[in-house]
Every structure is written in structure tokens, then in C-alpha cells.
């Protein structure tokens, strides 16, 4: 068990900066998720922690030890890859035992560790099979098993569930959660799927263009995103963004745009606001009828999608498409004009230039 | 004990004061540089490729360079001994003016054109035709078998077919048997200079290597999505059109690779000519000539020049290969 500390980590490939001045403290035993769109630098960061990429600038510590120059095999880490990276010519047992054999672990101990891990993952009966005889989910379990038997200080996961079909993904996700609960090993997990990030992470780091946008517990990134990117990335369906102008009335801030005029409650009104802002409202925060149009957004319905647990209503406001997640029993007609009440306590206001959250 | 500690302290003091001098610092820096340089050479990487590089260096690179130089020197067994004089362009003059050499050059050109056209052409046609029948695999094997046979074996096979018996005797060579059956006179095929016997030798080569080209073309052809061809057929194109306008262009890159491979092979043709005619009856080729000059007549200078001619002929294709290869690697 150990903490992982990244200090001012930068990675450059020639002129291109893949990771830009990233600093993070990952506490011992915590599950940290690096999440973001492809190319945001999350995998590169992970590989630097693993020792598979050289660090251009900055320092990485595992425990108390600076590991910048330490080769991967001496960092006491284990990694699970997106494509499993199982050795095709070895059976499952040997795949899992390989690392231990190289470390001259006594045979008896290898045996017990492999069997223990296999039991934990439900693959004891597959120990003599070769990878090509296994299904995707089983291969992934072997990959995880290979990491477990090493008893490392840190687990590193590189998009391990991306190659599985949706149903299997959900199942493996819960299994990983249970595993973490049992083993309590410090884990760094990379994914592009924000659902995985939200469900698995103790803290998530949302990355974009090599920069960590926000590093916080999942709920916080949902409730209090630090900028528009995080706000739009976390949460599904994504937050709606509308252009709005700011004016003041009776000391409160009023945001106005096509189809809406909203007065912010007093405790949320700020003084220093630019004239033009971006208003952010989550689909689930648009609900309830508002017959008089107060505190509401007006839109013309273009599409509805019945999901069973909610009704997604799509409408156009200006050129932007707005999505609302309503009670599934609501009756909404296409091409009708509806007013949806906005939850004024949870809406966000962003600076259109800097993208930062203002309110 | 005390003396020991005293000595150590003195030494340490000396050492530290030395370090502070400019010389000391310089030495330290140099040492550090050398150390880092040594560490940065990836010894292990070089260890992996070293055996291959050594062998290639000795057997391919070094001799090539030396042979080029040697072509400017005279005959003689030794490489660069006292008996071997510089003769300038004498050998080269021989290469380009001697009658037999000119015949050889002409023949190699003939080989290059006919052999390449034959193997590539037949290979392509067979690949396309065979794809349409169910017994494809069987015929493919039949056509490919000669590729597994040695040149020596093939030469015997065809020498037998070209065999000649005077008209009053039964023919035992298949070709003459056909000719006689059709009412003609038997012919000593391999004696028919200057064109026919060369062509008959080239036939042997084509017989051997068409299978090789066919296999490659077949793989490339099967890579063409069937829907492409079906769409064309539905659009109204007849088979010939489909072949000309779709199949051929798509196979052109493969054909280019195969053709260069074939040309490079055929410029070096030796075995067939050596076994069947040994270059007589104006069937001589460059490789055979080089062998004779070196090992029969002992004229190493001339032989080197002839070898260099071969190299010169092949260099354009080497460059083509490398360029193509580099483009591939870049795309990786």
C-alpha cells in the first residue's frame, strides 16, 4: 500500500505536449480515475506512473520513493491493459505466474497465490486453458489476476473494460468495485467513460489536453464543476449550455436568453459578472410544468425518447439543442411548445471566454 | 589504527583540495561524460544485432567494396599482391566490347523482358482464372510444384523434353515428338541460335517461377472485396472490362513488387544456363560468364568487372526496393 504523488508532471513528444504540469496526490488505498476524451493525456500519465514512458519534467513518488528513474519492474506496481496483453502461448496459470517466476518466488508460494487470485476471480477451472480459448470477460479476469498475484503497492488500469460489450462491462465494473473493496490497494484507473469514472472512483481527475481540469470526488464534479468542460463531460445526458445576457434587477442577477428569463436567487447572485455568459442546466434539473413561464425555459419539442425510467425531450432553443429528462409518465407532444421549470439552485453560469464556473 | 586514520584523513584532505582545482574539476567532468556516453550506448540492443551485422559485413559489404576496386586490377590469384597490377579500364573495356560479353548482355536483357513478362503475366492470369473453379487448390499445387524443384532438376526435366534424335530414330523428347507427329523434322532445340534456344531456356525459368507469382497474385486478388466486382457486373461491365478496369488497377501495386522481385532474380540467372548449355551456342549470361572468368580462366580482374556489371544492373532496383520499404515503414 502506498500513496502516489505526482508533482508538476509534464510529458513532451518533440513539440507536442501530451501532459502539461499535472500534480495530484493519490492517497493510500484510494481508487483514483483519470477520465477524459481521447488524447487528453490520461493514458500517458498512467504510463509515466508505470514507468513505461519517460518523464520530461516533474517527479513521481510511490510511497516515499521518487521513482522517476526506477524501471517498471522495480516500482512494485501491476498493470491491466485494454487488450489484456496475455501471453498467447502460455496457459492461464503461467500467465499469472510469469512475473512471480521472474522474481524467483518459491514454487509453493506461486501456486498458492495464483490459486487464491483465480478463486477470487472465479477462474480456477480455467488455469490450464490458453488465452485464445477464453471469452473476453475471462481474459480480462486473467489480466486482473496477473496483477493481483503480484501484491503490488499500486494497481494501474488502462481502459480495461473498453473491449467488452455493454452488459459485460457493467458486470465487470461491479466486480472491480468489490475487488477494490476487498483488497484496498491504491488504484489508478484510466477510462474515457464518465459512468465508469463516477461509479468506480473515490476521486476522479477530469483531463483535457494534458491538463487536469478538476480533481475531486465524483459528486463534487457533478455538483460543482470547476469549468464548462467538466460540467459538460460529467453527467449523462450532458448538461445543456445556453447563451445568456446578464442584467440586474432589484439587486439580483437576471439571466436572459431565447426562450427564458431567469432571476437568480439572492444567495447565488454575484457582483462581478460579464455581460454575456453561458448558462448551464442539467437535463434532470429541467422539470415540472410552469404554466406561467416563470423560472422556466420555453422550447418547441422536436423529439422524445422514452427510456422507461425517464422521458427524454429534445427541443431547439436558438441553434442549440436542449435535452430535458422528465418523469416518464408525462405526456409531451412533438412540435408542441412547453415550459420547463429550471432548478435555480443547481444551474451553473460559465464565463464564455475562460469557461470557468462563475456561479 | 591511529596511523591508518591519520593517513586516511591526509588523503581525504589532499583529495578534496585537488578536487577544488581547475584540473580536478575538468577531470571529473570528463569522467562523468564518458560514463554517461558509455551508459547511453545500448549495449544490449547492439548485442542482438551484432552477429547478423558481423556476418553481413564480412560476407556482403566488405567483398562488394573490394570487388569494385578489384575490377580495376589485373588477373592473378591474389587479391592485391605484387603480381596484380593496376590496369585501369582494361577489364571494363573487355566487358563492354568482347563479343561473348555482348552476347551475354543481350541475353540477360532478353531474359529480363521475357521471363518477367511471362511469370508475372501467367501468374496473374492463373490467379484470376483459378479463383473461379472449385479445383483451384489442385491446379495451384501443380503449377507451384516446379518452384520447389531446384534449377538443376528443372533443367534436366526440360533438357529431356528438348531432346533430339536424328529423324530416322524414334523421338524421346516430347517437343520433337509433337513436331514429328505434326509431320515435321526433329530439331536440335538447344542449338538453335540466336533466339530460339534462349527462348527455350527462358521457358524453363517461366515454368519454375510462375507458381511463385501466382501465389502472391492469388492472395492479393482474394483481398479485393467481391462486392466491388459484383457491383461492376451489375453495372453492365463484361468480364474483360471488369478485368481491365478494376482488377488490373487494384493489382498494379502487387504486380510492381512482384515484377521487381522477378527482374532482380533473373538478372542473376545462372543455374539453368550452366546446366543446360553452359553458355554455349550463344546462350551465355553474365553470371555464368563471371563464373567462368574467375574459376576456369583465373582472370579475377575481369571477373570482378563482370560482377560489378551485375551490381550496376541491379542497383536501380535496390534503390526502388529501399524507397518502397522506407515508405512502408513510415506508414507504420
Amino acid at each position: 500500500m502506498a500513496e502516489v504523488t505526482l508533482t508538476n508532471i509534464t510529458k513532451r513528444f518533440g513539440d507536442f505536449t501530451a501532459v502539461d504540469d499535472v500534480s495530484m496526490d493519490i492517497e493510500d488505498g484510494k481508487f483514483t480515475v483519470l477520465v477524459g476524451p481521447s488524447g487528453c493525456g490520461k493514458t500517458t500519465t498512467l504510463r509515466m506512473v508505470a514507468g513505461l514512458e519517460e518523464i520530461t519534467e516533474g517527479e513521481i513518488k510511490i510511497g516515499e520513493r521518487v521513482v522517476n528513474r526506477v524501471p517498471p519492474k522495480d516500482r512494485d506496481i501491476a498493470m491491466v491493459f485494454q487488450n489484456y496483453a496475455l501471453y498467447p502461448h502460455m496457459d492461464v496459470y503461467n500467465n499469472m505466474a510469469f512475473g512471480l517466476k521472474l522474481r524467483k518466488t518459491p514454487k509453493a508460494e506461486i501456486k498458492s497465490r495464483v490459486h487464491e487470485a483465480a478463486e477470487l476471480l472465479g477462474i480456477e477451472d480455467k488455469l490450464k486453458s490458453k488465452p485464445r480459448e477464453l471469452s473476453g470477460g475471462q481474459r480480462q479476469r486473467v489480466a486482473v489476476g496477473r496483477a493481483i498475484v503480484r501484491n503490488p503497492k499500486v494497481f494501474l488500469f488502462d481502459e480495461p473494460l473498453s473491449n467488452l460489450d455493454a452488459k459485460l462491462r457493467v458486470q465487470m465494473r461491479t466486480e472491480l468495485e468489490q475487488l477494490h473493496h476487498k483488497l484496498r490497494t491504491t488504484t489508478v484507473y484510466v477510462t474515457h467513460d464518465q459512468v465508469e469514472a463516477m461509479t468506480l472512483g473515490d476521486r476522479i481527475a477530469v483531463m483535457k489536453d494534458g491538463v487536469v481540469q478538476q480533481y475531486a470526488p465524483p459528486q463534487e464534479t457533478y455538483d460543482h464543476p470547476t469549468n464548462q468542460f467538466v460540467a459538460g463531460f460529467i453527467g449523462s445526458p450532458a448538461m445543456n449550455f445556453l447563451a445568456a445576457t446578464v442584467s440586474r434587477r432589484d439587486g439580483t442577477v437576471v439571466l436572459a436568453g431565447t426562450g427564458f428569463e431567469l432571476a437568480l436567487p439572492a444567495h447565488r447572485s454575484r457582483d462581478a459578472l460579464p455581460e454575456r455568459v453561458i448558462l448551464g442546466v442539467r437535463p434532470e434539473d429541467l422539470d415540472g410544468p410552469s404554466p406561467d413561464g416563470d423560472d422556466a425555459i420555453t422550447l418547441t419539442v422536436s423529439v422524445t425518447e422514452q427510456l422507461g425510467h425517464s422521458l427524454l425531450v429534445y427541443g431547439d432553443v436558438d441553434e442549440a439543442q436542449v435535452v430535458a429528462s422528465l418523469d416518464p409518465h408525462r405526456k409531451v407532444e412533438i412540435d408542441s411548445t412547453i415550459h420547463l421549470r429550471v432548478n435555480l439552485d443547481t444551474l451553473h453560469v460559465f464565463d464564455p471566454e475562460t469557461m470557468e464556473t462563475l456561479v | 589504527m591511529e596511523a591508518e586514520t591519520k593517513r586516511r584523513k591526509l588523503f581525504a584532505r589532499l583529495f578534496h583540495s585537488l578536487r577544488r582545482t581547475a584540473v580536478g574539476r575538468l577531470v571529473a567532468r570528463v569522467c562523468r561524460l564518458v560514463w554517461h556516453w558509455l551508459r547511453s550506448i545500448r549495449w544490449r540492443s547492439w548485442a542482438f544485432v551484432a552477429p547478423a551485422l558481423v556476418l553481413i559485413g564480412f560476407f556482403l559489404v566488405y567483398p562488394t567494396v573490394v570487388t569494385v576496386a578489384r575490377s580495376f586490377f589485373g588477373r592473378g590469384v591474389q587479391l592485391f599482391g605484387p603480381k596484380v597490377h593496376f590496369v585501369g579500364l582494361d577489364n571494363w573495356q573487355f566487358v563492354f566490347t568482347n563479343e561473348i560479353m555482348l552476347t551475354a548482355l543481350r541475353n540477360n536483357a532478353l531474359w529480363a523482358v521475357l521471363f518477367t513478362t511471362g511469370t508475372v503475366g501467367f501468374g496473374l492470369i492463373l490467379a484470376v482464372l483459378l479463383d473461379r473453379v472449385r479445383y483451384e487448390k489442385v491446379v495451384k499445387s501443380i503449377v507451384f510444384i516446379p518452384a520447389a524443384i531446384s534449377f538443376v532438376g528443372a533443367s534436366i526435366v526440360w533438357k529431356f523434353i528438348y531432346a533430339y534424335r536424328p529423324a530416322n530414330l524414334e523421338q524421346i523428347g516430347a517437343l520433337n515428338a509433337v513436331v514429328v507427329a505434326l509431320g515435321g523434322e526433329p530439331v536440335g532445340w538447344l542449338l538453335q541460335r540466336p533466339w530460339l534456344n534462349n527462348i527455350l531456356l527462358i521457358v524453363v525459368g517461366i515454368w519454375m517461377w510462375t507458381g511463385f507469382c501466382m501465389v502472391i497474385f492469388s492472395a492479393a486478388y482474394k483481398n479485393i472485396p467481391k462486392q466491388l466486382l459484383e457491383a461492376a457486373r451489375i453495372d453492365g461491365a463484361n468480364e474483360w472490362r471488369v478485368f481491365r478496369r478494376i482488377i488490373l488497377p487494384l493489382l498494379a501495386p502487387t504486380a510492381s513488387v512482384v515484377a521487381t522481385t522477378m527482374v532482380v532474380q533473373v538478372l542473376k540467372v545462372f543455374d539453368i544456363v550452366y546446366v543446360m548449355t553452359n553458355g554455349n551456342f550463344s546462350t551465355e549470361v553474365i553470371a555464368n560468364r563471371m563464373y567462368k572468368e574467375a574459376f576456369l580462366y583465373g582472370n579475377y580482374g575481369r571477373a570482378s568487372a563482370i560482377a560489378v556489371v551485375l551490381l550496376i544492373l541491379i542497383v536501380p532496383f535496390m534503390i526502388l526496393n529501399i524507397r518502397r520499404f522506407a515508405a512502408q515503414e513510415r506508414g507504420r
Partner: protein
Amino acid sequence: MMNAKKLIAKTPLHVAIFVFAAIWAIPTLGLLITSFRDPASIAGSGWWTIFPRLLSGGQYSLENYVGVIYSEGLGRSFLNSLIISVPATAISTFIASFAAFGFAWMGFTGRRTLFMVVVGLMVIPLQMTFIPILPIYNKLGLHGTFPGIWLAHTAYGLPLTTYLVHNFMAGIPKDLFDSAAIDGASPLRTFWNIVMPISIPALASVFIFQFLWIWNDLLVSLVYLTAQKSVAPLMLSIANLVTNRGQDWELLTAAAFVSMALPLVVFFSLQRYFVRGILAGSVKG
């Protein structure tokens, strides 16, 4: 009805293919038949004349083969060919594997350029190499010895073999190497315990390809070995046979078949690997 129509429409196709197949098969067939006939019959009638009496046993014999193997010493030559081909191919494939791995997965300055040079050397005519090497061989006493020709064949085959093996090794997924690095495998371990086992199919193809090439070779044997029966490989002996006994078809045909026997067996039993070997080098993707 439809099928008959199809059959008729396809007749030209079948005829054309049949002609091709015939041209390709007949020469070898003629050779095979002749090798079982006695000298008198061969001189007296063409081999195609046996067809009416195909199954009457009396006209066949193994005399020619016996003669060629024992009196003409081709049995010894066959062994020599084995002694030459197997070690040379094994060493060549082995060294090429190391080099291919180094070029594919280990970084060092000039790696790419060096590799392209090695591959480019594939086309160098062997004639360029004989004259400078022979004096050195003579001095070292390697001329006319098996080790001498092993080295020569190995070196000559390295560019192509390295290229083919490299083709395969470069395609191994990178994360396998990452995993090995994390597991703690040194480059040598990774090479020996992971890459080589995975490469076995490719190595098999390369091995067979190279083996047949060396088995069928004439030129290198001519240059590096004397025609002494004790070391002469099959091709060399047979070539001499053609020069000396050019009209003795009973011997030549049997000899030809002795030389073809092994390649044909290898070809038929391992066709897959052989073809894959060719394709690996030539068709991209």
C-alpha cells in the same frame, strides 16, 4: 438446367485451365515415368508410349535409382546436402531472429537506417562476394569444408530472413512488451520466453523457405566446395552428372528425382507454411 448452362458457359475457362495444368504437369510426369524405365526402352521409345500398357508391371524397375544412389554416389551427396542445409538454415534463422528482434523492438541510434541497409543488401548478386572472400577462406582453411559453407549460406540468407522475421515480430502488440516489462522481464527474457514462442509459425515458414533455397542451391556450392564426393551436395553432383553423362537419361531422370524428393515431400506436407513465408515477404496487408 441452370447448372448445365453454367457448365457450358464456363467451358472455355476449364479448357484454358486444363491446358495450363497440362503444360505444367507433363514435363515432370515424363521425367518420373522415364526414371523407372531401363536404358534400352528410354532410347527406343518416348515415355508417352507406355500409356496403353500403363499397368503392365514388367517395364518398371528401380534399377536407375539404385545405380544413381550407389554407383554414382548420390546417396552420399544426399547426405551432404542434409549436412549442409539443416545446420545452415538453423543458424541463419537463429541469428536472424535475434537481429529481427533487435531491429523491431530495441531502440538504438541508426536503427532504422541500418535495417534498411540490411534489407537493401538482399539484392546484391553473390558474384560480388566470391573473389575477395576466397583467399581469406583459403588462408583459414575453410574452403571445401562444411563449416565454411555454413557460414556462407547463413550470411547470404540473412538479409531476406531477417526481413521476413522482422515483418512478423514488428506486428506483435506493444502492450505485450509493456506487460513483460512490468512483470520484470529483461530484453533477453522477453525475447526468449515470449517473442520466440509466439513467433514459431513465422519461424517455421522462414525455416522451410530458407531450407529449400539452400537445398536447391548450386552456385554457392560450386564456389565454396570442391567437387569432392565427400562433401559435394546433391545439386553439385547432379550438375556434374549432366556434364559427364549427358545422354544417359536413365541416370539423369532418376538423379533429378532424387534431388526433388525431399523438396516435394516438404512442400506437400508443409505447404501452408511455405506459402505463408512467401506471402509474408511480398504482399503487404
